[in-house]
């Protein structure tokens, strides 16, 4: 863990956010397992530090794009857990009024431009959002989350090439959990690290321990500063672990046992809790945070469970913003 001194309140906030993700995901998993959620969910358990560290380097006016495994990314950027849980439940009080579900959570007011169900699709979108910032000179940066598997999509190459060619204020943040569904990245990729590919675009590329929230924070902070100076994008690769299978319920039998042994040995939350105590944060303060998060997630669950489903007539609204009725009819 870092030698540098940080404000205690900052460190506690990082812990709070990581814990919020973990508890949200555990609650979602429980609901899914009990059959309370429709469709599919992809859990971010194990990837909390990468997501919280990255978003800690952003301000409220900055933007993110996310992935199909997007709950943690949204929470890290400040999304409300009750509206998120309600969306997972398909309720009208959810972020998207039940029309998007787990993979499409957006909070435009927080700069969350959206999770995405198509692997790699967010990379050009983030690049375009950064293009808008450069056009307007608004000083905002866009951080693009994607997984190791998305780095083999064509959109990765096309978008990063353009982001680099035009010095756009964008941070490409790869959460490398080593698996695309069942496929070990090393079986389908000839680079040890995704960050090596930065050289192809003549931009900085670094690999950091994605379970070290402060290491991620520092790497992204450097990238954000570069972007704000108008010097263009960076590629930051966070080595992390996906504790669950690809989707909730996937037993991940395709992974060797050592993967989880390694993941648990590198767990961010207990390590960081210990670090907080070493830094002089009082045990009571940590316990208080833990209790608050427990209460918050209990509230999120209750809110989602007790909320109403949307009226079926809502299925026909919002396809278009102008002339919706006629455009839907024929």
């Amino acid at each position, binding site marked *: 863990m870092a030698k540098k001194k940080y404000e205690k309140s900052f460190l506690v906030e990082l812990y709070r956010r990581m814990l919020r993700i973990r508890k949200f995901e555990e609650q979602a998993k429980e609901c899914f397992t009990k059959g309370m959620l429709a469709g599919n969910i992809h859990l971010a358990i194990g990837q909390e530090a990468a997501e919280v560290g990255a978003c800690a380097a952003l301000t409220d006016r900055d933007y993110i794009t996310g992935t199909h495994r997007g709950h943690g990314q949204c929470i890290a950027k400040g999304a409300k857990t009750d509206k998120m849980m309600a969306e997972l439940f398909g309720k009208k009080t959810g972020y998207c009024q039940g029309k998007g579900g787990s993979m499409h959570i*957006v909070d435009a007011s927080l700069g969350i431009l959206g999770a995405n169900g198509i692997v790699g*699709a967010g990379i050009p979108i983030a690049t375009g959002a950064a293009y808008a910032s450069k056009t307007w000179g608004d000083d905002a940066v866009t951080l693009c989350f994607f997984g190791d598997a998305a780095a083999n999509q064509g*959109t990765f190459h*096309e978008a990063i090439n*353009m982001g680099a060619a035009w010095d756009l204020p964008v941070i490409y943040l790869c959460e490398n959990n080593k698996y695309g569904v069942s496929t070990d990245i090393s079986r389908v990729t000839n680079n040890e690290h995704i960050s090596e590919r930065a050289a192809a675009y003549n931009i900085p590329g670094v690999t950091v321990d994605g379970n070290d929230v402060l290491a991620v924070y520092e790497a992204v902070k450097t990238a954000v500063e570069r972007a704000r100076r108008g010097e263009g994008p960076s590629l930051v690769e966070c080595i992390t672990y996906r504790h669950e299978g690809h989707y909730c319920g996937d037993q991940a039998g395709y992974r060797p046992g050592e993967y989880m042994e390694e993941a648990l040995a590198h767990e961010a939350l207990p390590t960081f809790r210990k670090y907080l105590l070493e830094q002089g944060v009082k045990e009571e303060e940590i316990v208080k945070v833990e209790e608050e998060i427990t209460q918050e997630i209990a509230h999120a669950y209750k809110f989602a469970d007790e909320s109403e489903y949307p009226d079926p007539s809502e299925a026909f609204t*919002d396809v278009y913003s102008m002339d919706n009725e006629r455009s839907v009819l024929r």
Partner: protein
Amino acid sequence: MSRRISFSAATREGVLEEMRRDSNVMVIGEDIAVMGGTFALTRGFLEEFGPMRVRDTPISESGFMGMAVGMAMRGMRPIVELMYNDFIAVSLDPLMNQAAKLRYMTGGQITIPMVLRAPMGAGRRNAGQHSQCLEALFMHIPGLKLVCPSTAYDAKGLIKTAIRDNDPVVVLEHKLLYAKKFEMPPEDEEYTIPLGKADIKREGKDITILTWSRQVLFALEAAETLQNDFGISCEVVDLRSLVPLDWETVNASIKKTHNVLTLEEGVMRAGVGADLSAQITETLFDELDSPVNRVAGANVVSPFSPPLEDAVFPQPQDVVAAVRRQLNV
């Protein structure tokens, strides 16, 4: 003072006026800035608006289509130019799974005010990968609007409305219309044309021809022959936009003529005519004196050789023959 200008010059005027009116409008695509576009549509734009608003891209259609979605999410109004509509095959995800669905999937939190302009169509001997008419493909995706003008006047009025629309709008322009000249109002006389408003290009009483884009010109040519040689009065309805569709005009015309023919250049199978025919049969069956008749491209790949190409998409004489068969004249 009226004037005659080409379809491409009129489209250019429409885009130019909107870029001057709204600084969030920008154009992005291949060879549109320094060169000014394959059809010279954006010549001079780079000098006037600068590189951020007139952006030459690498050959990365999926990448820049996706970037346009991100720009639109932030409130810019990008106009993406694909060099040929056929290239949608390498750039469909950002349009189909992103632009078209984001408003809906976010419960209305986000709008995507982007325009996709693309040339389409056969007749230039461009062979299979540069000659398709893909209206049916775009129409099949809820969340997209689709505009296919046939004249310079319509092209200008519709592109301006498409740019101001807050939804993703696909504008397909037939390549063989670009150089054609049409009557236009004076340059300083601003106008727009609403989406979903058909235009009756020729009034008639015996049969309704539903069509759009270049085939409107073929329908008008056929209508002239049918009137002069066979005394058949055709009503040529230029749908102009396929989504939204001006059902009121379609409905009124069919109730007047009681016979209807759909005419399109794209392939017949699962084409626009198939859908129009089904809708008409479902709701106006009792009005019809003959079955809905479809004239469309053959279900083949666009060939290169001129005699082959001319044989696979509708020509004016095919329309004449189809109408005569339908009306037993």
